[in-house]
């Protein structure tokens, strides 16, 4: 989570310096939740469909920093090769699909990945996890996807990071229940509610949800409560967030809380944490420097086709074999 924070601070600077086009979307304030999830998953076995504020989860899951900097800085060598940018990146072949902007849309995709593995007789203790925000809980895709996963009893873990605002829309304009975790009962799935500003709480609840899904308990919904400590993107100053909310419990910075928890519980010392910071800053610097040196995509080298099939296809042989291509 610390590495993600340092990386994202750098991305914000690069954006403000005009080095990144499009936008920069930070997970500031949500690192405890995201990193805890990423840590509970095993790359190569589990599936993880991160969303907009999951840099920490991506890093914990095993995404190298260079995938992030290459995508933000438009290097042709990145996983999206300049064809998509910022947080719309993934490596589906490694169990990490690339998000689209339409919220809730990854829920059934992860369900489908798990469904396929079960059909192949290869589910093998895998889980699939994805994250959404409070806003996406209002979409049809969320409902359809979660209900489908429940009907199929798939090992899906869905985290709702309730960061109080969907862009600028507050919770009370988004849903009418007290806590979104109440929805779990309606879907017939497991439900957890956790303080997303509290790393130790996240580290206790989220792996437990993952364990239950892994052990055949069907989909698990985890609702984590926190405040987004940035704008929707770096173009947004978030001035619609009332000062009282900022100063309240949910406005705590999960990284500061975590550092305190590590020190107070004797898990890590202050010097150790400072050393991590230095080390991560250097890693981030390297990943940025490397991506900045790399060539952007060349429109003259693009094949400009969205199809994997190369038409025209060869002619088929009469009626001999039906499967022509």
């Amino acid at each position: 989570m610390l590495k993600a924070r340092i990386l994202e601070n750098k991305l914000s600077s690069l954006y403000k310096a005009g080095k990144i086009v499009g936008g920069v979307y930070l997970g500031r304030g949500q690192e405890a939740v995201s990193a805890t999830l990423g840590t509970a998953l095993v790359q190569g076995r589990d599936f993880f469909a991160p969303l907009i504020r999951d840099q920490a989860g991506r890093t914990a899951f095993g995404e190298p920093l260079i995938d992030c900097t290459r995508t933000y800085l438009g290097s042709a060598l990145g996983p999206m090769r300049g064809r998509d940018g910022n947080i719309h990146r993934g490596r589906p072949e490694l169990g990490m699909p690339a998000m689209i902007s339409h919220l809730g849309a990854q829920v059934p995709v992860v369900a489908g990945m798990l469904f396929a593995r079960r059909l192949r007789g290869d589910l093998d203790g895998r889980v699939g996890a994805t994250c959404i925000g409070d806003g996406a809980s209002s979409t049809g895709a969320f409902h359809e996807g979660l209900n489908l996963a429940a009907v199929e009893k798939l090992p899906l873990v869905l985290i709702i990071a309730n960061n109080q605002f969907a862009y600028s829309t507050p919770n009370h304009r988004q849903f009418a229940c007290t806590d979104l975790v109440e929805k779990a009962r309606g879907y017939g799935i497991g439900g957890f509610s956790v303080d997303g500003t509290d790393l130790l709480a996240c580290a206790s609840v989220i792996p437990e949800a993952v364990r239950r899904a892994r052990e055949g308990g069907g989909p698990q919904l985890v609702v984590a409560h926190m405040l987004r400590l940035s704008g929707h993107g770096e173009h947004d100053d978030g001035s619609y967030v009332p000062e009282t909310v900022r100063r309240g419990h949910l406005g705590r910075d999960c990284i500061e809380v975590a550092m305190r928890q590590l020190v107070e519980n004797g898990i890590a010392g202050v010097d150790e944490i400072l050393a991590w910071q230095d080390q991560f800053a250097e890693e981030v610097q390297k990943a940025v420097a490397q991506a900045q040196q790399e060539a952007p995509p060349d429109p003259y080298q693009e094949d400009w086709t969205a199809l994997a099939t190369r038409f025209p296809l060869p002619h088929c042989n009469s009626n001999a074999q039906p499967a022509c291509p």
Partner: protein
Amino acid sequence: MSVTYIDAIREAQATLLRDDPRVFLYGQDIATFGGAFKATKGLADEFPGRVFDSPLSEDAMLGLAVGAAIEGMRPIIEMQFADFSSIAFNQIVNQAATHFYRTGMPIPLTVRLPSGGTAGSGPFHSQSMEGIYAQYPGLVVLTPASVSDAYHMLIDGVALEDPVIFCEHKFLYRWLKAKSINGDHLPIGQARIVRTGKHATVVAYSAMVHEAVRAAERLHEDGWEIEVVDLRSIKPLDIDTVLASVARTGRLLAVGEAFPWGGVTAEVVSRVTEEGFHLLDAPPQRLNSRDTPVPYHPKLWAAHRPTPESICEALRKLLSF
């Protein structure tokens, strides 16, 4: 013994399930019930664990298919009616269609769309959505008009690495029969000349091919030789076959059952005009449905879509130039 168009679709799915362990079927009421049109009748028994009833969730059905394709499967999704695919539109055009371009990983899934009008089906069970899907990069859009094509194009479509929108016409399901599912097996992306002629070319697809042939038969009585081209595949569009036909006849009428604004017929006319203006002896014409929702009453419905009569009328106008 004869084979219907829907028999061919069922047989194609049976063949695919038998020959390819990656194929599975997912859709509403398709398992024990065999589907609203019985396109999957008996398949759940014949292939246990390969044919699944889905919840009534078109968006999630397509999302599941994308995820399954990522993990190496070849899902075939049955939409109960093409019209309902509007609920799945996001997953089709934003998730499935962009995936290969964005990530380099192809998404081989097939969406079966029971398309087009039948008497009494009304505004929400009659739509022809091929033109809408063809507008988006990253999709293959197929519109078989014959029993043989219904079989071979479904099998060939599932074998493609790309998402395939398979538009099967509900009117043809039981009306169209053939002696066998064999026929000239053309590759996907190639149009077929179903009737040769020298005075005008009608470009059609799906059920409209049959209406165009009837119109051509009527005009034959007056001495006109009308060539009919069955596009078979909307995307990719075999404009070469169309241009070659127009080169022979000098006249073009494009006929489609979809709504008139834009769409397949507009694309055909615009490409022929662009690439073959010098071949044309008359202004190219289009004939589509009317610009209203598809009406319920059979009398209104019959006047909403192109018919042999309206195609004849359009051809007579075209031949008068």
